[in-house]
C-alpha cells in the first residue's frame, strides 16, 4: 500500500491504483477526456497531466500507477500550463460549433475549455474536416468534432463486445468509425453517446430537439425488460424528450439498452387518450361514466349466482408485461371481490410462481454474476431478453475462468452472445442429462465453487415447464449451487411486471384458470368477460366472443380487440412500483402526466370498484402502498434484495423433445411502446436476423 503526497495531502492507496484515482479519493478533480473508469486506459488525450516531483515532464495521471513516496501537484503552474497546452492542441481541429451542437451544455470539452482554453486561437492553418460516419439509425455523427479519445472504440470492444469500431488511418487523417459504413450490431450502442465526451456521437432520435437546461429530470425505473434499469427521464413540458441511464452499481452500472433508451418516441404515438366503447362493432369515443356503465351492464348480463353475487368463475383478468404492482394489486382485489379466481400475470404461460420465492427470482443477483465461476444458461438468450444481465456476464467472462454452457434459447452454436460459450444442446434432453450428473458440464459445475444456472422463459413458457423447473432445481442442488452464502439458481424474466405479479399472487386462485385456461374458456364461451391490464402479447383471436376490457396506454393488439378501452398511464406517467428479476422492488416516478383523459391505472380500478358498489379500501396512493406492504412486506424494502427461500418447486415427470426457443421474436418490437416507435421499427428492419434466435417475424418491414 504505497503512500504518496498529492497537493500536500498524504494518502495511502491500494497498489495498482493510478495517480488519477488517488486524486479522486482525495476529492481532487482531474480533467480528462479519454479516461473512463469502466474502460481500459488509453492515455491519449493528455488532459490529465499533473506534475510529479523528480520527473522531468508532467505525467499522464490516468495511466501512471502510484508509487511509494510520489509527490504530485495537480494545480501547480507546470500542470496548469501542460493542460492548457493539451487543450489548445485539442481545439486546433475542433470546429467550435457549440451553438449548433447537441452536446452543448453537457459537453466535457466545452466545460473544460472554460477552465483551460485560451480566449483566442493562435492557429491559422488549415483545420481538418472529416466526413460523417454511419453508425446506424440511433447515433448521429459529426466526426469533425471528434478528439480521438477512443472511448467509443473501447466501449464497443470491451463492454458491448462488438469489435466493429476502430481508429483507421493515421496522424491528422485518423478517423473513428466502422470503415465499412455499416450499422453497429449492438443493442448497447446508445451508450456510445454517453461515453463520447464531445459532440461527435449524439442521440439521433433526440437531434436538435432540446437543450439540457430546458429539461426537467425525473429519476425513474425502466420497464422494457425485467432488469429494472435505473433511468433518468428528461421532459420538456409534457413531452418525454429522452431517457438516460442512471448509475446503479448492482443493476445497470451506468449503461442502458437501446430499446429502453430509444423507444421514447413510441410514448407519444398510438396513445389511448380517452375511453372507448364498442358500438355496433366499432370503437366509439366515450366518457369514463359510459365506459364503466358498459362494463357494468356486461357484468349484469352475465347474471348472478344464488348468493346474488357476480358469477366470478365467468370473468377473468390478465396482467401484461409492463403493469405496475399497485395496479395489479388493485385489479386482483377487484376480481377477488367479484369472486373470480381467474387471474394470471404470466402472459407467456411460464410455469412459475408459488410460495417459494427463490423459485422465481434471479437469486444470485446481477452484481453477483461477478462472483460466480461457472454458468449454465437454459432456454434463454440473455442478449435479447436482459441486455444488461448479458453485459454483466460478458464482464465476468472477460475476467477469465468462467466456463459458460448454453442449452437452447439461441438458434445454435453460432449465435453471438458477446462471449464464448459451450453449446451443449438444444432441448430438454440435454438438461436431463446434466441433471443425471454424468454430463461433462455437470461435473464442471460440481467442481466450481460458485456455479450458477439461469433458466429463461424459453424453458419455462412451455407445457413441460414445471418439469424443466424441477430438473433445473435438481441440477442446482446436485452441483452444490445452493449454500449458506450463495444461491446459484436463477430465473431470468423478461417482463417488468412478472416478479411483482408473482409476489402479490396475481395467479389463478382455487379452481382458477391460468392464461391458457382463460383463453380456452373464452373460446368455448365459458368466460364472458376478460380484463386485460396492458396485456397485448396473448392470442387475441382466441378470446372468442368474450367481452374484452382493455386497460392500457397504447393502441396495440389488446385495444384492437377490446370492447371497452380504459386509457391508462405509461411507465413514465405514474408513480408506481416494479420488482425486477432479482426481486428488487423499485419505485418509478412520474415524469409527465398521462395524455388526455388517461389516468394512473390503480385509480381507474378504484373508480370502477366504486361504480359497481364494491369500493377498494384505499383512496390515495399512500394508502394503497401501505396496504400493499402489509400484504407483501418485501415490496416495502425499496432497492433491497432479500434472499428468496428455496423449496421443492417444479414437478417431476417426463419432458418434451421440442428444443428451447427464445421467446424474443424481435428485440426491438417486444412491447406496445416499442411497436409504436418509428425508431424501433427502423432498428427492427435493419437488424433483422442479426444475432437473433428466433429469426424474422411477421412484423419485419
Amino acid at each position, binding site marked *: 500500500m504505497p503512500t504518496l503526497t498529492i497537493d500536500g495531502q498524504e494518502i495511502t492507496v491500494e497498489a495498482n491504483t493510478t495517480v488519477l484515482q488517488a486524486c479522486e479519493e482525495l476529492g481532487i478533480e482531474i480533467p480528462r477526456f479519454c479516461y473512463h473508469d469502466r474502460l481500459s486506459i488509453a492515455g491519449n488525450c493528455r488532459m490529465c497531466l499533473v506534475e510529479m516531483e523528480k520527473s522531468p515532464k508532467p505525467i499522464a495521471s490516468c495511466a501512471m500507477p502510484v508509487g511509494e513516496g510520489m509527490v504530485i501537484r495537480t494545480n501547480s503552474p507546470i500542470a496548469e500550463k501542460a493542460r492548457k497546452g493539451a487543450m489548445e492542441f485539442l481545439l486546433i481541429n475542433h470546429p467550435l460549433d457549440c451553438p449548433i451542437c447537441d452536446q452543448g451544455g453537457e459537453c466535457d470539452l466545452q466545460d473544460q475549455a472554460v477552465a483551460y482554453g485560451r480566449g483566442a486561437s493562435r492557429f491559422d492553418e488549415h483545420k481538418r474536416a472529416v466526413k460523417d460516419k454511419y453508425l446506424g439509425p440511433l447515433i448521429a455523427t459529426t466526426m469533425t468534432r471528434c478528439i480521438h479519445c477512443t472511448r467509443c472504440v473501447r466501449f464497443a470492444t470491451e463492454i458491448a463486445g462488438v*469489435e*466493429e*469500431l*476502430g*481508429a*483507421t*488511418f*493515421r496522424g491528422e*487523417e485518423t478517423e473513428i468509425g*466502422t*470503415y*465499412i459504413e455499416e450499422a453497429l450490431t449492438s443493442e448497447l450502442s446508445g451508450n456510445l453517446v454517453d461515453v463520447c465526451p464531445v459532440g461527435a456521437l449524439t442521440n439521433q432520435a433526440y437531434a436538435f430537439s432540446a437543450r439540457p437546461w430546458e429539461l426537467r429530470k425525473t429519476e425513474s425505473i425502466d420497464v422494457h425488460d425485467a432488469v429494472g434499469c435505473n433511468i433518468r427521464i428528461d421532459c420538456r413540458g409534457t413531452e418525454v424528450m429522452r431517457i438516460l441511464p442512471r448509475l446503479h452499481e448492482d443493476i445497470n452500472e451506468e449503461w442502458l439498452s437501446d430499446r429502453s433508451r430509444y423507444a421514447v418516441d413510441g410514448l407519444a404515438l398510438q396513445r389511448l387518450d380517452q375511453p372507448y366503447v364498442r358500438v355496433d362493432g366499432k370503437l366509439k369515443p366515450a366518457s369514463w361514466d359510459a365506459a364503466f356503465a358498459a362494463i357494468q351492464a356486461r357484468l349484469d348480463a352475465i347474471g348472478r349466482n344464488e348468493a346474488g353475487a357476480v358469477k366470478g368463475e365467468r370473468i377473468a383478468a390478465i396482467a401484461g408485461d409492463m403493469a405496475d404492482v399497485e395496479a395489479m394489486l388493485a385489479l386482483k382485489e377487484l376480481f377477488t371481490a367479484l369472486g373470480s379466481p381467474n387471474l394470471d400475470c404470466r402472459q407467456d404461460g411460464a410455469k412459475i410462481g408459488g410460495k417459494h420465492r427463490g423459485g422465481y427470482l434471479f437469486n444470485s443477483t446481477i452484481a453477483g454474476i461477478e462472483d460466480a465461476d461457472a454458468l449454465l444458461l437454459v432456454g434463454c438468450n440473455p442478449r435479447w431478453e436482459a441486455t444488461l444481465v448479458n453485459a454483466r456476464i460478458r464482464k465476468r467472462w472477460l475476467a477469465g475462468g468462467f466456463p459458460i454452457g448454453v442449452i437452447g434459447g439461441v438458434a445454435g452454436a453460432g449465435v453471438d452472445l458477446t462471449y464464448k460459450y459451450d453449446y451443449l444442446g438444444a432441448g430438454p434432453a440435454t438438461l436431463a442429462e446434466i441433471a443425471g450428473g454424468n454430463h461433462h458440464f455437470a461435473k464442471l459445475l460440481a467442481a466450481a465453487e460458485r456455479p450458477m444456472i439461469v433458466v429463461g422463459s424459453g424453458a419455462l413458457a412451455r407445457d413441460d415447464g414445471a418439469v424443466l423447473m424441477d430438473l433445473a432445481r435438481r441440477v442446482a442442488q446436485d452441483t452444490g449451487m445452493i449454500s449458506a452464502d450463495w444461491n446459484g439458481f436463477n430465473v431470468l424474466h423478461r417482463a417488468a411486471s412478472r416478479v411483482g405479479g408473482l409476489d402479490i399472487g396475481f395467479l389463478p386462485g382455487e379452481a382458477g384458470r391460468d392464461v391458457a385456461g382463460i383463453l380456452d374458456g373464452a373460446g368455448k364461451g365459458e368466460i364472458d368477460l376478460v380484463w386485460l391490464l396492458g396485456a397485448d402479447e396473448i392470442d387475441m383471436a382466441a378470446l372468442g366472443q368474450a367481452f374484452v376490457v382493455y386497460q392500457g396506454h397504447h393502441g396495440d393488439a389488446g385495444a384492437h380487440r377490446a370492447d371497452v378501452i380504459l386509457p391508462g398511464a405509461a411507465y413514465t406517467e405514474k408513480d408506481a412500483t416494479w420488482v425486477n428479476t432479482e426481486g428488487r422492488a423499485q419505485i418509478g416516478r412520474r415524469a409527465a402526466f398521462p395524455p388526455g383523459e388517461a389516468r394512473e391505472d390503480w385509480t381507474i380500478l378504484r373508480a370502477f370498484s366504486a361504480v359497481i358498489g364494491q369500493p377498494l379500501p384505499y383512496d390515495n396512493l399512500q394508502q394503497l402502498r401501505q396496504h400493499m406492504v402489509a400484504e407483501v412486506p418485501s415490496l416495502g424494502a425499496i432497492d433491497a434484495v432479500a434472499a428468496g427461500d428455496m423449496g421443492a418447486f417444479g414437478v417431476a415427470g417426463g419432458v418434451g423433445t421440442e428444443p428451447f426457443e427464445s421467446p424474443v421474436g424481435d428485440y426491438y418490437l417486444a412491447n406496445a411502446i416499442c411497436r409504436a416507435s418509428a425508431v424501433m421499427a427502423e432498428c427492427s428492419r435493419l437488424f433483422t436476423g442479426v444475432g437473433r434466435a428466433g429469426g424474422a417475424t411477421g412484423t419485419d418491414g
Partner: protein
Amino acid sequence: MKRVPAPPEQQPDSFAFTPENLAVAKQHIAKYPPRRQASAVMPLLDLAQRQQQNWLPRAAMDAVADMLEMPRIRVYEVATFYTMYNLAPVGEHFVQVCTTTPCWLRGSEDVVGACKSKLGIDFGETTADGKFTLIEVECLGACVNAPMMQINDDYYEDLTAESASAVLEALAKGEKPKVGPQNGRRASEPAGGPTTLHAYTGDN
C-alpha cells in the same frame, strides 16, 4: 497525402490466396504461438497485396481477418495505418520519389519534375495506360545515394533528371533498367572513387 480507398465499384467481390501464397501464409502464421496468429497480419496483408497487382482490396483484408480469426476492423486499422498498403489500384510500375531533406538537398525536385513531365501526371495519379503511378514519399533510408526513387521493389539511386527519365523510359519499353546507383558508382562508395584503402580496391 490522404489515401482514399477504392470506391465499391472498383472493389472485387472476393479474394482468396493462390495455393502457393496460401502455403507462404501458413508459414508466416506458424511463426507465432497458438492463439497469437493475429501477429501475422502484416506479412499476410503484404502477401495479399502482391497477389492483387500491388493493391489491397477490402475483400483481401476481410479474407486475412477471417483467416487469422480477428475482427475485421482490426485489420482495417492496420491496413489504413501503414502507408505501404495501397488501398486503391495502382499502375504496373509504382513510382515512389523521395523528397525528404537529404534527397531534396541533392536535387529531388529535378527528379520529381522529370517524372512528372515524362509521365504526364501529378503526384497521386496514374497514367492513362495504367502503367505508372507516381507518388511522393518520405525517407526510404537510402540517403547516401540521394536523390532516389523506389519502383515496385527496386531502388534507383543517385538520380538526375536525365537518369530518372531514362529509367522510366526503359520501363515503359518493357526493359529492365539497371537497379541501384545510376551514376556509375558502386553501392555507396565515395562518388569520386575510393580515397583510402586503395590497396584493397585494386585501382590505386
